[in-house]
């Protein structure tokens, strides 16, 4: 059958395009196949991830409990040491009074001066020990710093646990970057811990600044 000129022209055009029309389909199928394999592999990988991530999340409350126990234990231990120090301080006050009375009595009895000097020397030594006891007390303030750091770590762990659970739910190793960028409480606490480490003032610097404000 004879074709009209435009129809023949159209057929020629179709014949010309035929090889390029088949190629995209094949390529598309190949890409879809590749994508399906990628999704399959990713799903398997993600399912492997979710178990340890889930397990880690479940361990975090335990870690928090351990940290809080650590705080309680240091607090109890510190109070125990303080109790002993306070007992010795009270005892020193009592002994100090007795030594004062003894010195007075020796002076009244007009005994050898070197004996009185010895008693006074004992009083001086006792006073030096009082200073050491006070140093022990103030050194125990480490517990307060430990407790504050523990509190911050517990808050951070709480936030990390929350994030990990979110990751488990949404298969989120891909969310890592988003989590990293998050400006949550944990981030803030970490910054505070870092800042304390890097830029904390000592008393001399604080005094220098105070001086600038007229504190003499």
């Amino acid at each position, binding site marked *: 059958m004879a074709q009209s000129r435009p129809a023949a022209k159209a057929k020629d055009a179709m014949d010309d395009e035929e090889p390029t029309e088949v190629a995209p389909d094949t390529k598309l199928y190949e890409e879809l196949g590749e994508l399906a394999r990628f999704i399959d592999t990713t799903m398997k990988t993600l399912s492997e991830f979710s178990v340890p991530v889930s397990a880690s999340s479940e361990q975090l409350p335990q870690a928090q409990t351990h940290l809080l126990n650590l705080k309680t234990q240091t*607090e109890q231990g*510190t*109070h125990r040491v*303080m109790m002993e*120090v*306070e007992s010795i*301080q009270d005892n020193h006050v009592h002994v100090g009074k007795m030594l004062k009375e003894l010195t007075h009595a020796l002076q009244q009895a007009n005994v050898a001066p070197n004996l009185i000097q010895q008693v006074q020397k004992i009083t001086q030594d006792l006073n030096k020990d*009082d200073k050491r006891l*006070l*140093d022990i*007390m*103030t*050194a*125990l*303030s*480490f*517990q*307060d*710093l430990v*407790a*504050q750091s523990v509190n911050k770590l517990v808050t951070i762990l709480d936030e990390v646990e929350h994030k990990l659970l979110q990751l488990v739910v949404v298969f989120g190793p891909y969310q890592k970057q988003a989590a990293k960028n998050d400006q949550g409480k944990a981030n803030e606490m970490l910054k505070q811990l870092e*800042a*304390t480490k890097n*830029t*904390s*003032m*000592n*008393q001399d*610097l*604080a005094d220098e*600044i*105070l001086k600038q*404000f007229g*504190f*003499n």
Partner: protein
Amino acid sequence: MPADPNMKILVVDDMSTMRRIVKNILKQLGFNNLEEAENGQEALTKLKADTYGFVVSDWNMPVMMGIDMLRAIRADEKLKKIPVLMVTAEAQKENLMEAVQAGVSNYVVKPFTAETMQEKISKIFK
């Protein structure tokens, strides 16, 4: 004006160990009329209910922070003249500036020594 050894002093800190340490130092310095509070809110209640001559306070506490308590003290006609010494681990310059602006009487950075505290108290009550 030298510090009156009989004045009532309020020690404010959420950590029991720190309250005990500060009270011990104050005792050794001759102050025996000591009270304590666990946070700024409790401290304000006590300050309003009685007459205190001096407040030693931490910064970082639950319920009400030390800096907020300081602002509340300075804003209260009855309490505003009470000297407040901040004893704190908040050791950033910004914290110190904030405390100065809020009207702190002096500032001690933890960890501290008894000598530092004595020196600061002497300066406040000179």
